[in-house]
């Protein structure tokens, strides 16, 4: 009798675990149904190539950190208004604006505007949910952490790992189109912020050089979008970024490599980078880039 009870208990636990496993699979299956543009066979970009090129798009933490370090003042007016989310009814808009709101979230966190992030956090959750990729963000924890500016590093850690895992998942699920759009939205918003912040003589050249360096990133983004350029929604984005590329043709970048030197201090190896890059970009080109990216961004955020 005792043996029978034990066995029943074990079987009940096993059954419970299997049922929970089935539920998990069911949720995963639902995400697989979302193919809103090209199908697997039509893709000619290899999965690893997509991963590599998406990785070459700078994380929004980079640009926001640079702006903050350069002494640029925070501006809430630069962000996509949180209420715009109601305008996004297609997966194309949702994916692009997931990148936009994600970038806004990072920008606010870097500048310690943690309390204002709650609405944007909720937008990221809602758009991710619409795209069936909400499983990559622990919103309860993020919400709790966002209550204090002391937790910014943890918030950035969870947000960044969430976006990274989401991108990997989308590519592996043959939903590279969505991953590419999220990445494009992120980059466009970062460039929009960088070109529209108020600079001062002390940081203007430094920020302009960083804007010029985006030339290479734009080339990679265009390569990714090229695969989808015949799609109804992708074609205008591709064409608009091609126009931007034409403006970037005026930017000249040169590199001078010099062997780095090393210094070890308390177990930390410090690399002294003796190489240099030179970016030649005129004020006129900066203005053209700023206007073009604002035009593209206006169409994205609606």
């Amino acid at each position, binding site marked *: 009798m005792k043996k029978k009870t034990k066995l029943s208990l074990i079987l009940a636990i096993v059954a419970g675990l299997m049922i929970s496993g089935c539920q998990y699979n069911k949720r995963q299956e639902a995400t697989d149904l979302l193919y809103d543009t090209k199908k697997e066979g039509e893709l000619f970009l290899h999965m690893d190539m997509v991963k590599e090129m998406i990785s*070459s798009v700078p994380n929004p933490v980079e640009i926001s950190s640079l702006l903050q370090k350069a002494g640029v003042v925070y501006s809430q007016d630069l962000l996509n208004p949180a209420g715009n989310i109601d305008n996004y009814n297609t997966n194309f808009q949702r994916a692009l604006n997931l990148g936009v709101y994600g970038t806004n979230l990072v920008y606010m966190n870097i500048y310690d505007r943690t309390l204002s992030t709650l609405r944007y956090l909720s937008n990221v959750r809602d758009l991710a949910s619409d795209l069936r990729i909400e499983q990559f963000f622990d919103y309860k924890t993020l919400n709790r952490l966002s209550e204090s500016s002391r937790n910014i590093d943890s918030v*950035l850690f969870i947000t960044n790992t969430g976006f990274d895992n989401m991108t990997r998942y989308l590519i592996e699920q043959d939903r590279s189109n969505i991953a590419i759009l999220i990445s494009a939205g992120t980059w466009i918003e970062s460039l929009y912020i960088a070109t529209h912040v108020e600079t001062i003589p002390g940081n203007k050249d430094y920020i302009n050089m960083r804007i010029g360096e985006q030339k290479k990133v734009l080339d990679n983004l265009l390569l990714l979008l090229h695969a989808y350029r015949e799609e109804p929604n992708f074609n205008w984005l591709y064409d608009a970024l091609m126009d931007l590329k034409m403006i970037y043709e005026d930017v000249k970048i040169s590199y001078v490599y010099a062997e780095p030197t090393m210094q070890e201090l308390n177990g930390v190896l410090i690399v002294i980078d003796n190489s240099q890059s030179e970016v030649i970009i005129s004020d006129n080109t900066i203005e053209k880039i700023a206007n073009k990216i604002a035009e593209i961004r206006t169409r994205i955020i609606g």
Partner: protein
Amino acid sequence: MKKHYIFLSLFFLFAFSGMSFSQCGEPLLNVCHEKIENARFLRSWPIQLPKQARGETLPQVSFKMPLTSGNTYKIFACNDADLPGKVIISIRNQNDDLVVTSFVIEQARHIPVIMFPVAMSGIYTFSFYFENGEEGCAVGVVAIAE
């Protein structure tokens, strides 16, 4: 009854094999997160490589990411203590010049943290492999030093 035990054994075999695999990814990253300290997390890569087979090339994985001039990057990795491999990081610039490696060959010593103040913006390649081609699992992390 025998069938039940076979079924249960198979179930637990699968369950536990899954658990040991998962410890290599997210849980290791969560432990590694603490080492970020006063830096801002940017990106992480899970690294899991088999033992180098005799006569075969050293297993390694590479990832690319842009590094921006003016930022100082904190680069490090965490090893899964259950496996023998100790990860080595090497970084190359976009011209494929070696910038730095986390292993001092002459002293057979690992450098736990690399600080890299970048002077030349570009797309850098981060390669990971395990010392002596051992089997290993690790997480590589890049953060921006504040």
